[in-house]
């Protein structure tokens, strides 16, 4: 056994270091935040437990991204899954926690099962657990086996990443954990699956058929759209963010999938560029989604509810949280000059540059993928207008929101740190890209010494000679100068004074929060436009005082989760039905069980002799 352990147990190449970096910049603010968040929420024993689990969780993830041995990788992967399971069920106050935890642990183990099969196949060819040994052995692997291993890895890691249709655990598990854990889970844990795909598929297995990349691209596009459409329908603020994680994993995979595609058709420059775009979005998503989850946690802490329909007007009571949330919302909606804008722009550029270099129908395919990405970012912007507008603006819709107080200093510090990172990663695009180029070159094994992605320290230039530029510092400068000019003109004409008066109410009566637009109403056009996918239905109930007078009217609207209803529920029903039959051979007699063991051993001996 010991001789199977490699000489070098840990691996600190640029790819691993990059993921360690992402892990540390999200864990640090989350830990600071948890000081304030845990206070008053749990008993002192539970607080200690929360800290212990947090450390175990971060350490296990650090192990996952640095280990150089597939056996220990699997062990670390399992520890990560188990610790995160305990964190999902940590909040025992909610009865939903146990259900969420069960769905999570079942799904993640199905994923791990696929990984084990893939790793055993790899081990069979390499006779070693060491990454480098496997990498060289994979060159000798027959094409058919490589394809199968790729699919196994994709399903295994895809389950963790939350690729549609394997995403169903994500909207249950992420919101249920304490908020600082949600931010690490969404920010980093699902990214370890992306690490797995890059490390095992691109780096070790090596991409040689172009359909791999195409398959990843198609799955990514589906994930983007499904994630964002479900998010639009969601009114639980943390679950909504969890659906956005599905969407953003899709955007990251667009970059990674493109890199795989370009590697297979031998366009190394574009492969590196797409990989940079994917990794850039990865770190950005970690930052802004971490930030948004922390803000959502603050809202929950201050109001005690996660239902945005019950919130409103929080910008007045919690001005700082609102400002941080706005930064996060702008970044995830890809608004300039924040970081989400840069990485989505880079991803789109990767599609465009790819289209300039490939032939025929592939151009159209890339164009339509890019168009779907644009649709996704448009829908994401709509969704975040909804979340921010309904949660923080207008008048409070309930006493929860009415009496909210700004959260404690340590929580604000955690959010401030991530907000600053959001801005810095937008402005320092060139520096980030230069660093990511090294990571991408290590992952794809492409020499980047003769490649350049930037004009100078302020301007991104995807390809020399195409004269395409993007300079976020300049853009910010221009936006600020023009905004200030606008303000100057505004002040110049300030002869008449500004009055404050109530909102126009059509002359009826004083407007209150019941007249406000709700999140359900806001998302109604989307619900109708995407009804072919969402299959919405509603329940109405009239409560009558007499035949003539209706006292109140209940209206509820639902959407059908088609993946759950048409894929997972039938499978689950099948499992339960077969379990019912299996019960017959388990009557509880120990003699019968002993004979089962005997028969099994016998069969195994025969099996080993024959094959």
């Amino acid at each position: 056994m010991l001789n199977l352990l490699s000489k070098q147990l840990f691996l600190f190449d640029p790819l691993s270091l990059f993921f360690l970096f992402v892990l540390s910049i999200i864990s640090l603010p989350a830990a600071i935040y948890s000081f304030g968040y845990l206070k008053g929420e749990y008993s002192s024993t539970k607080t200690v437990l929360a800290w212990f689990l947090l450390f175990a969780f971060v350490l296990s993830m650090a192990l996952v991204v640095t280990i150089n041995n597939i056996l220990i990788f699997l062990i670390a992967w399992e520890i990560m899954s188990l610790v995160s399971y305990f964190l999902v069920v940590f909040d025992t106050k909610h009865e939903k926690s146990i259900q969420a935890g069960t769905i999570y642990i079942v799904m993640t183990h199905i994923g791990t099962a696929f990984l084990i099969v893939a790793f055993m196949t790899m081990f069979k060819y390499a006779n070693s657990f060491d990454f480098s040994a496997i990498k060289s052995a994979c060159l000798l692997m027959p094409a058919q086996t490589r394809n199968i291993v790729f699919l196994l890895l994709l399903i295994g890691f895809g389950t963790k990443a939350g690729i549609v249709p394997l995403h169903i655990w994500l909207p249950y598990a992420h919101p249920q954990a304490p908020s600082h854990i949600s931010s690490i889970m969404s920010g980093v844990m699902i990214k370890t699956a992306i690490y797995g795909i890059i490390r095992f598929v691109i780096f070790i297995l090596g991409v040689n058929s172009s359909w791999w990349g195409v398959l990843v691209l198609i799955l990514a596009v589906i994930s983007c759209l499904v994630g964002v459409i479900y998010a639009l329908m969601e009114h639980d603020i943390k679950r909504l963010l969890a659906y956005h994680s599905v969407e953003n994993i899709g955007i990251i995979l667009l970059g990674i999938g493109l890199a795989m595609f370009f590697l297979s058709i031998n366009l190394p420059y574009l492969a590196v560029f797409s990989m940079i775009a994917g990794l850039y979005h990865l770190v950005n998503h970690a930052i802004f989604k971490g930030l948004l989850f922390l803000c959502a946690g603050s809202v929950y802490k201050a109001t005690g509810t996660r239902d945005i329909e019950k919130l409103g007007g929080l910008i007045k009571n919690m001005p700082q949280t609102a400002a941080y949330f706005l930064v996060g919302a702008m970044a995830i909606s890809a608004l300039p000059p924040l970081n989400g804008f840069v990485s989505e722009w880079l991803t789109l550029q990767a599609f465009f540059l790819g289209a300039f270099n490939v032939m025929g129908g592939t151009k159209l395919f890339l164009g339509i993928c890019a168009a779907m990405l644009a649709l996704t970012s448009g829908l994401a912007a709509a969704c975040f207008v909804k979340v921010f507008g309904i949660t923080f603006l207008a008048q409070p819709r309930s006493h929860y929101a009415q009496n909210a107080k700004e959260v404690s200093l340590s929580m604000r510090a955690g959010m401030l740190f991530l907000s600053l990172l959001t801005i810095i990663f937008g402005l320092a695009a060139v520096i980030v890209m230069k660093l990511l180029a090294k990571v991408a070159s290590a992952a794809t094994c492409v020499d980047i010494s003769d490649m350049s992605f930037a004009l100078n320290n302020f301007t991104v230039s995807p390809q020399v000679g195409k004269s395409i530029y993007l300079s976020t510092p300049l853009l910010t400068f221009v936006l600020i100068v023009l905004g200030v000019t606008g303000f100057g003109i505004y002040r110049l004409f300030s002869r008449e004074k500004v009055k404050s008066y109530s909102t126009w109410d059509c002359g009826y009566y004083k407007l209150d929060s019941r007249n406000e637009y709700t999140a359900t109403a806001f998302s109604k056009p989307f619900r109708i436009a995407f009804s072919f996918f969402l299959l919405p239905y509603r329940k109405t109930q009239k409560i009558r005082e007499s035949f003539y007078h209706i006292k109140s009217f209940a209206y509820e609207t639902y959407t059908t989760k088609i993946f759950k209803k048409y894929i997972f529920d039938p499978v689950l029903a099948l499992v339960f039905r077969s379990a019912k039959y299996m019960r017959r051979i388990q009557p509880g007699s120990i003699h019968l069980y002993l004979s089962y063991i005997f028969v099994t051993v016998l069969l195994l001996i025969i099996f080993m002799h024959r094959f």
Partner: protein
Amino acid sequence: MRIFVLILQLVLFIGIAPFLSGLITKIKNNIRMRRGQSVFQPYYNLVKLFSKGEVISETASWIFKVTPFVVISSSLAAAILIPVCIFSSPMRYMGDFLALIFIFALGRFFLALSALDTGSSFGGMGSSREMFISSLVEPALLLVVFSISLQFGSTDISAFSGMHPVTVSSIVAALALFLVTIAETSRIPVDNQETHLELTMVHEAMVLEYSGRSLALIEMASYIKQMIMFFLIAQIIFPIAVPCFIDLAQMFLWIIWYIVRIIVIGVAVALVEVSITKMRLFRVTDYLGFAFVLGVIAVVCAILGV
């Protein structure tokens, strides 16, 4: 000198954009056999709004106050991104055609938020519908950009700002962009700028609570945005290159031409507005779906090289 040209360009955009709106209204009125307001009415409106006081809702937060400046700044930033003169503008490093889409999104995002900020249901309605329409616009718009970049090998706006041959792909792309422009500038059949009827309004519902100088800034921003969209269509199907710094008189002549073709697009928009009725909101999906299909056709044509 470059900064000078840049400021000149901004002044040009600010100066002409309201005229374009006034002209469209005038044409519409004349076709309907009305005398109509003067083509300079938008200027009078702006002057009036600038000299008036302002009422801000008690419910509103700083988002509401800051929005006019964000909106005007994003529109103006888009305006200087466009190369009117063919020379190496320092602003070309700021971004490309794709960045333009995102810059518009910035203004729209804040406008939609400010509409929710006052707590009126009109605002919410407008905000919801605006985000709905704009998110469906994005894929069609992106395909237009895609087909044009395929033709010119770059997403740089200067790439097609010079003289270039007009292909089938350009014409189809321009048509798709025309449909997109109608949706983006809130015109019939997608939206109606003339009405304040709650069932039909989208953009007007969002800015309903604004008054005085803030409203003037927002109106100005939408005039400029409209002019930029018209400019893009014009540049795709009537390409003209303005020679810079050669001869001032000649440059002036070219700029006149430049404006004339933008006016041509404006006339087309006016004709469309008077000849069809407004669609139901949920038919906008079909309308923009058609724009998307046109975008796909433009890409296919670009791939075939026609």
